[in-house]
């Protein structure tokens, strides 16, 4: 095998060109053209349209909600990852399985279920009224969308952090403690810095789907908070302007790849050869 210098990768090379590169090139082509009488003419109109305040606002809102969700996932997820990583081996693998378990159920179902929980006459409000409190009106608001995102993507934050935390050499922690560091210092100076790669892949794995989702916003947002994902989906399903839809997609891709590049600067283990995301 060695001698043939990776000949066996060539079939996949062809496959990936056909199914990964070419499709993206088609999208790129669409984004720079306009359909006039069944032929495509070069045009920058799609991008010009995209840069109007109206659409930039949509981008702004998507980024804002995705950022809030990512931070919330980090704040909620880090402690859980930490607590679980401190448990005995078999207990912690059970616990982490319990974190992953919900992901094996269809995410649309789980998101839909929130409708029944958050609705005006839903479970939470029925409960609040029973104990004599005033009901809350959360469904079809930004809060519901953020909640849906945090709910769906929290495991994506917990797992990479947990994976990094359990790999930390306990000798390092013991050494720090022996040298007089208290628990807060050990965490600040040893554990947290060592867990940064996990935090970074966690952030990536939450931020990316959050910024591009169109389902959570359409189910829990009631169709009034258009995010980038909805904008793209609308172009391809409802309105049929594939060129504009492609331009939005390319623009979103660039934003995501840029933020990824910035993040990976802080990520010690930015290798593309696997492991980091798994």
């Amino acid at each position: 095998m060695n001698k043939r210098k990776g000949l066996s990768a060539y079939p996949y090379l062809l496959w990936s060109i056909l199914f990964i590169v070419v499709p993206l090139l088609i999208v790129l082509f669409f984004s720079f053209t306009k359909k006039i009488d069944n032929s495509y003419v070069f045009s920058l109109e799609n991008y010009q349209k995209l840069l109007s305040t109206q659409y930039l606002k949509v981008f702004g809102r998507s980024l804002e909600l995705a950022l809030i969700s990512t931070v919330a996932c980090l704040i909620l997820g880090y402690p859980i990852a930490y607590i679980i990583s401190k448990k005995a081996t078999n207990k912690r693998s059970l616990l982490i399985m319990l974190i992953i378990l919900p992901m094996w159920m269809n995410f649309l179902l789980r998101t839909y279920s929130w409708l029944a929980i958050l609705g005006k006459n839903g479970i939470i409000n029925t409960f609040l009224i029973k104990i004599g409190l005033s009901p809350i009106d959360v469904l079809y608001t930004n809060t519901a969308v953020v909640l849906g995102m945090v709910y769906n993507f929290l495991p994506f934050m917990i797992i990479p952090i947990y994976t990094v935390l359990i790999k930390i050499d306990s000798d390092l922690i013991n050494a720090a403690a022996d040298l007089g560091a208290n628990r807060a210092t050990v965490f600040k100076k040893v554990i947290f810095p060592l867990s940064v790669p996990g935090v970074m892949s966690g952030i990536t794995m939450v931020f990316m789907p959050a910024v591009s989702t169109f389902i959570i916003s359409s189910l829990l947002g009631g169709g009034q908070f258009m995010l980038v994902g909805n904008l793209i989906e609308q172009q391809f399903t409802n309105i049929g302007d594939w060129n504009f839809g492609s331009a939005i997609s390319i623009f979103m891709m660039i934003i995501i790849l840029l933020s990824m590049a910035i993040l990976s600067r802080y990520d010690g283990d930015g290798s593309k050869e696997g492991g980091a995301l798994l």
Partner: protein
Amino acid sequence: MKILEKISVRIYMFLIFLFLYAPIFALIVFSFNESKSMSAWQGFTTKWYVELFQNDKIIRALYNTVVIALSSSAIATVIGTIAAIGIFNMRGKLKNALLNINYLPVLNPDIVTGIALMSLFVFLKLTFGFTTMLLAHITFSIPYVILSVLPKLKQMPPNIIDAALDLGATPGYALRKITLPQIQPGILAGFLMAFTMSIDDFVISFFTTGSGVSNLSIEIFSMARRGIKPEINALSTLMFITVLALLLLVNKKDIAPNKKKTAKAKTSTSNNSNRSLAFALAIVIGVTALVVVGKNQKHQKTLNVFNVGDYIDKDLISKFQSETGIKINYEEYDTNEIMYQKLKGGNSDYDIVVPSDYMLEKMIKEDMVEKLDFNNLPNFKYIDDKFKNQSYDPNNEYSVPYMWGTIGIIYNTKLVDDTVDSWNILWDKKYSKQIMMFDSIRDTLAIALKRLGYSMNSTNPDEINKAKQSLIDQKPLVKAYVVDEVKDRMIGGEAALATVWSGDAIYMMEQNPDLSYVVPKEGSNKWFDTMVIPKGSEHKEEAEAFINFLMDPDNAKQNVDYIGYSTPNKAAFDLLDDETKEDESAYPSDETLDKCEVYKDLGNDLKLYDDAWLQIKTH
């Protein structure tokens, strides 16, 4: 201090797990709910479990999901493993390039991968359906396989292969005896990852399927918008129990041997192999079950029917299937526009679609529908003459009317004490956040146009602009823009006022007696939905047989009883009970109907509506 810390840690863990599991428990609880709606508890039942196994559509979607997951992850694992070995042996720029390309589907949002593949399939003129979905799943799975196999290859002792070759092993033998066993955990992990990704995928499947092929996610998505069927809750309960049982089983096995091991022994590998074994077992069981199910699914002829959501009595499909032996693939859509895009953009092979008046007009103009052979449609004689030769199909060559109705306001009499007779009430600040509007371009703008006294077919940019502005002004008062979800929400009393189609209104009023429907005095839309055969259908005769079947008076009556809309079928109308015949909601007086307009196809001027709509929605 210690105790306090311990308690707070416990509470925190409990809250997080509650957060993660609450929706699942809600689904489980509601799977035993007597009521169809997830809004209220109405008593214990297990009937949904029985209905689940009788629901052909869900079983079919489940079947597709698992077959696609199994085959795509198996193929991806083979291609991915071979590729990983190749990449591992590669050097230089090509290796880097390939790794970068491989990373694209991982980094790219689903939606971009989805539309990119959709564009490719359109370009290649592939028919959307099972094959395209499978290709898409393989494509997004391979990178995960490669990313889990590569690290294992790197962990192999560097000279181990050379040693084997020096000792006389052929490269093939070395691969089989050394490399593969070494990277086996990576391959398995990759397979599982690919399998999980495929099972859970919605977005990419959504954009790459067609021709009546759907998977569970797509099915759930289209249901979620009009109120999940309790059968789906039952299914998720079963799924959850299976996965949980599997997990507990695996863990029980794990814990016993672990206790004997010394602290330093690495347990994770044995965990993994046990787990994989259990998975392999589960998959084998799954496949066997599917083969059994699949055997029952074989029919000679299939008809792909693409209809609006919840728009047929499903019993009629079974009846037609057993009468004729023709199998029906039934797929649903939300709006005319979505159906049109699917037909226009995709190389789909639908045999029957159900466009509304204006959409049919457009499709006829664009040569998208076949002329019907009325010799095959003897039951056309039952259609009331006043519904024949409508403006959208003047010589009645292409279409057969399916249902008709109006648009109006449904309101909850417990929450609204004003008289509802005008569209203006939807702009009344008193009902702020209690109003639900259509999530549909033409319908929503039509309401605004009518309210301002314009025609709903206006192509005057000024008028459209004013309508747009009034909808933007109204936006803060609107609780949500919805299509089919409105039914569940209004039945549950979640909003005071909503715009609806008359047939839905009738269904909703049956479910909740507090609701009432009115066609506002400014006038409204009168619409017709028609059955047509798209160009390129390969089963035209069977499609005509089905259309004829639906025009049979008894069948048409059964259908309209179920759907609740108004039938254009004179013979079926005569069969209805008097109460329905006299119901103003379903069969309004001529005085009301005279004030209603039928949508016209606006040609290129539709762009004005699209732009206005986007501006409303992004505002």
